[in-house]
């Protein structure tokens, strides 16, 4: 693949240099760069690439047996409203119900060291799910969030096959109860959206990171990868972090420390 990789640490100098070549109509691009959304109001202009949302997971703080992030995600996005189809095997349902975050436990067999981490959509810069989607339903929003346009999704599940993180789920049955902020219907694929309804309302937070903080673990930091003064970039600068399957060169928005 011959993608031009967008550097996470894209500096002001680089940005100005690039913008000058693009268009003279871009009025003082530096002025708007890294400006935090000032007021918490619903947006009226489409999202732009001024932000790229990301998440840092500190695996050393992720507690064994804690499911606060998963539970918060379930409630926030209506995943707890799914019900087991009548007569379905319990184990089968556990595997098939839509989950946006999976708690994964890794054990180093040599040392016995155990690491816990939440694994969700990594919001790649070059998402394989988008590459393979035959209808264009799987897409990356301008602000880096990888989403599914369910109006266009035909439920072929190629993206589920393509995702190296097993982050996508398929809705097999009609869901009776839906939340206004999280529509959900039979025959579509879905995954973590970084609580996009919150972001669009001007609130930079996710349910999982909030729940983790409330639980006292502080293992999740959500923020803007393009804001060098923001909490996420500051946390990233302080400790070495990794992408899962860094070798694939996807430039994920979710990073892990302590792996």
């Amino acid at each position, binding site marked *: 693949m011959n993608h031009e990789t967008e550097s996470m640490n894209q500096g002001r100098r680089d940005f100005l240099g690039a913008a000058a070549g693009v268009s003279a109509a871009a009025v003082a691009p530096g002025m708007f760069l890294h400006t935090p959304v000032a007021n918490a109001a619903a947006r009226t202009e489409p999202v732009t690439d001024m932000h790229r949302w990301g998440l840092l997971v500190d695996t050393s703080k992720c507690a064994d047996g804690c499911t606060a992030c998963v539970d918060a995600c379930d409630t926030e996005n209506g995943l707890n409203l799914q019900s087991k189809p009548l007569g379905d095997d319990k184990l089968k349902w556990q595997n098939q119900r839509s989950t946006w975050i999976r708690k994964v436990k890794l054990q180093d067999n040599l040392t016995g060291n155990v690491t816990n981490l939440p694994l969700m959509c990594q919001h790649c810069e070059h998402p394989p799910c988008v590459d393979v989607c035959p209808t264009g339903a799987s897409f990356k929003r301008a602000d880096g969030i990888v989403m599914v346009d369910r109006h266009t999704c035909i439920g072929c599940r190629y993206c589920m096959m393509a995702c190296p993180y097993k982050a996508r789920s398929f809705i097999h049955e009609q869901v009776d109860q*839906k939340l206004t*902020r999280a529509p959900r219907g039979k025959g579509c694929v879905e995954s973590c959206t970084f609580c996009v309804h919150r972001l669009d309302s001007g609130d930079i937070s996710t349910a999982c990171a909030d729940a983790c903080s409330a639980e006292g673990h502080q293992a999740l930091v959500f923020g803007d990868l393009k804001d060098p003064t923001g909490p996420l970039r500051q946390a990233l600068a302080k400790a070495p972090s990794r992408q899962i399957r860094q070798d694939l060169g996807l430039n994920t928005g979710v990073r892990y420390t302590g792996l």
Partner: protein
Amino acid sequence: MATVMMKGVLLASLVATFGMGVVAQAEEVGDYVLPSSKAASLENCVEPTEYMRRNHFELIRHQRDQTVYGGIRGSDHGISGCVSCHVGYDDKGAPVEIDGKGQFCQSCHEYAAVELNCFDCHATVPTGEAWNHEVAAAHAHLPGAAKTGPTSAER
């Protein structure tokens, strides 16, 4: 000739049946706004009523792409606005599913014989729309007011 007459009779009987069906459902054709809904107390919809009757789906479909790709929520033309304003309430004040029999969306779509499949996925009662900008404003992690405490990497 006989077949033509047969067809005519059949058509007439069909029209009669259809007409009766309509009378049984609504007193005034085209007026499906429920008295218990918020919409009943308003002068007209987000656009003139006649325009809405003919073009509401265009507005919703346009807004749908704005919302999905542009993140523009809370616009007048979104489907959540339709539901929250047009949903009817029962005696106990609980919202009734808008795609239910006799409810606003369903009754008109039935009359027009147009399939209504928005609500295969979308919420039929206004629930879980609580994450609006008022809630966001009251929320702890406000943008601009970023946490002053140490981040996870600092601890």
